[in-house]
């Protein structure tokens, strides 16, 4: 069973960050802690200070740097390109999911989230 070191949750909604963390805990995701950021720009700063992060869950629709730009930047930067990245958004399905997967996103989840959706997305990693 994989245990994550640190999980970073990126969402401009404090409520959504809380729901994502709670769903992950209820799904049995093991980690030594959660970190949070309100947008992609802030997430980049958190990543620089916390190299132990090995899973990132991000929203798409955010101010300053949205989830697509964040994913593109993350996957285009060698030190972070292998980081596991999951998108959780109210507007991600169909073509959007294909586009995100092409960027290197490992799973795309549609809100509202549930522990079951998280467990399915992380599959064998739980």
């Amino acid at each position, binding site marked *: 069973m994989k245990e994550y070191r640190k999980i970073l949750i990126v969402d401009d909604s404090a*409520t*959504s960050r809380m729901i994502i963390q709670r769903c992950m805990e209820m799904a049995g995701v093991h980690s030594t802690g959660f970190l949070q950021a309100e947008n992609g720009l802030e997430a980049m700063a958190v990543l620089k200070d916390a190299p132990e992060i090995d899973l990132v869950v991000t929203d798409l629709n955010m101010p300053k740097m949205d989830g697509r730009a964040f994913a593109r930047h993350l996957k285009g930067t060698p030190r972070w390109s292998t980081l596991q990245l999951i998108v959780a958004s109210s*507007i991600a399905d169909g073509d959007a999911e294909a586009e995100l997967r092409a960027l290197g996103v490992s799973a795309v989840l*549609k809100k509202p989230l549930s522990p079951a959706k998280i467990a399915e997305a992380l599959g064998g990693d739980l």
Partner: protein
Amino acid sequence: MNEGELDTGKAVRCLAEAAGSVFAEMAFMDAERADRMSDDGKSVEGMPAPLPADGDELSGDDVVRVALDVLKPLSCRLELDCSARLAAAISDILYGVADAELPDGENTPPAIADRKSDDSLLEMLNVLAGGFLSAYFGPGTPFKLELPFFVFGEPDVIGQTIARVDLNVEGLPAALTLSSIRYRY
């Protein structure tokens, strides 16, 4: 959005469907239609979930209004109105206050230091918008949304109502309104 391009009946059905599933999945609340409008927008009698006659009303200062502008595939605004009591109930449920175990002799839940009750309704509208757009336009359609915001006083857009669904959320009123956007500069 050009309201002529939209099927009002389908929009009403999709709004009601999105409301039902999002209230249930996010807040574990039943949201039933409470209006007296049929799917084609005509007035009919006898919808199944009328609100209590002496309950909260969606008017006056006690109404919380949040809105979100859709930019793609068409321009429109989705607004969620609800009573302050319902907004507080949603926040309580999302943050687990309703289920909090209280020490003996205490009747009110403890304050949660990082609770962002205002944010709860904005996030709920955000998810509602995604649910409505997916249901109406189907998978594969690219969507672009602005960030949700609170509406205070006079709205900054003047648009026509395309579809509206009045809801009975476990005895408390709410309404979802889809309208065209014409900005006031």
